[in-house]
């Protein structure tokens, strides 16, 4: 177990292993993404209530679901950074913050696109999921800006790790408190549960495929950006220089 764990911490080992996995992951991602997008966006029968807008929802739900994974991921990476001082965890955390911000942003964008059709407004404060996603985006931007402000990379790694742990706890509290806040302000809300969940098993299957596709996309982009990070940070080490000479 410990051998495995310390091996995992070695950037070189990760670089080699991820290089082997990457083609398979990319292939799986392309397959799921194609099925999800082509079937979901072009062939899925329109929902009887929402019409064709339910197709946006497939992408939105998949991206939103994935967005929720970022803070837990950064929590784990942060703990590993602080406790075991594993550099690889920090490289993952750094890219997870940036990717997470993009995912949160896309969630908000697709959500408001869907809202503009369904609710007739681009932004709706009474939808607690959108509001808490907005604050998750803010917290992630806080982590990113803390990292860019700190010059020393070791300090930045530990500081961001700590902030991610605090942020993860906070994001959970925010989520529940915003939900609560919302139930008390539902007076004139256009958001109803009927309108936000289209029926039909096809819809859920398409969403499921899309969720898998987006998770694969997340893994691939995280691995790719971490590999870049490894090359940059380990540029002085022998194995990276050998690698560069070979190619």
């Amino acid at each position, binding site marked *: 177990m410990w051998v495995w764990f310390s091996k995992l911490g070695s950037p070189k080992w990760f670089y080699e292993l991820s290089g082997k996995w990457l083609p398979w992951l990319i292939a799986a991602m392309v397959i799921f993404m194609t099925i999800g997008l082509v079937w979901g966006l072009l062939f899925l029968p329109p929902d009887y209530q929402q019409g064709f807008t339910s197709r946006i929802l497939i992408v939105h739900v998949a991206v939103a679901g994935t967005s929720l994974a970022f803070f837990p991921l950064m929590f784990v990476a942060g703990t590993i950074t*602080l406790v075991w001082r594993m550099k690889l965890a920090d490289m993952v955390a750094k890219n997870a913050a940036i990717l997470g911000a993009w995912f949160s942003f896309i969630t908000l964008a697709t959500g408001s696109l869907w809202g503009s059709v369904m609710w007739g407004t681009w932004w709706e404060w009474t939808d607690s999921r959108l509001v808490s996603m907005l*604050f998750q985006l*803010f*917290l992630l*931007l*806080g982590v990113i*800006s*803390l990292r860019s*402000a*700190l010059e*020393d990379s*070791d*300090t930045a790694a*530990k*500081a961001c790790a*700590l*902030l991610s*742990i*605090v*942020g993860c706890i*906070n994001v959970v*509290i*925010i989520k529940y*408190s*915003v939900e*609560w*806040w919302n139930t*008390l302000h539902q007076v004139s809300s256009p958001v109803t549960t009927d309108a936000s969940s289209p029926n039909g098993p096809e819809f859920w299957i398409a969403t499921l495929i899309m969720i898998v596709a987006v998770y694969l996309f997340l893994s691939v982009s995280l691995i790719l950006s971490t590999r870049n990070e490894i090359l940059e940070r380990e540029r002085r080490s022998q194995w990276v220089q050998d690698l560069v000479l070979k190619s």
Partner: protein
Amino acid sequence: MTEKQTTTSAAFWATLKRDLLIAFKKKNDIVNPFMFFIIVVSLFPIGISPESDRLTEIAAGVIWISVLLASMLSMDNLYRSDFEDGSLEQLLLSPHPLFFLVLAKNISHWLVSGLPVVLVAPLLAYMLALPEEAYGTLILSLLLGTPIMSLLGSIAVALTVGLGSRGLILAVITLPMSVPILIFGTLAVQSTLNSQSPAGYLSLMLVMLSVSVSLAPLASAAALKISVN
């Protein structure tokens, strides 16, 4: 070499006393956030509406948001001068648990920056036409909420203490974290206005305060160690 080591509580009180002493010698650090709070609150009626009906509606939110901003601005003093003159290193090298020393600093900071704001709140609530029956809830919610702000803000300040210019990054980190406090603080006041009991919200804030008191100083201590590294 047989002199007695201090107890942790002696170190705690020494730190608390020292920070209060510094605060009273540097009065600007106390007065400015306080003035800021009063000025910001005074701007709202001018920017929104002088009608007392509309002011009543926004009073709790305006006071709460101004409190958050003022407490965030005052946070910057918490560790900066200690970092610059090296006292922070001495603090970190104390044999006593850092948890209590950081807690002492947070308590002193709240006493000089949070408490005055809470005490002046009824006056501003009056100016914003908040009905009298809500004063009690407002003060109670502020009494519970401002220490949470100090404790949470302390983590962010500790993380950014080594940075040259950190005013804005502090805001970016702390303000989103204060959302739950803002929600429960304003909901408590609203529910009093709707003649409901605010006890539920206040007890939730009490829970949040006790969790913050027991966990946040640990995070602050870890953050200070990281920043001084």
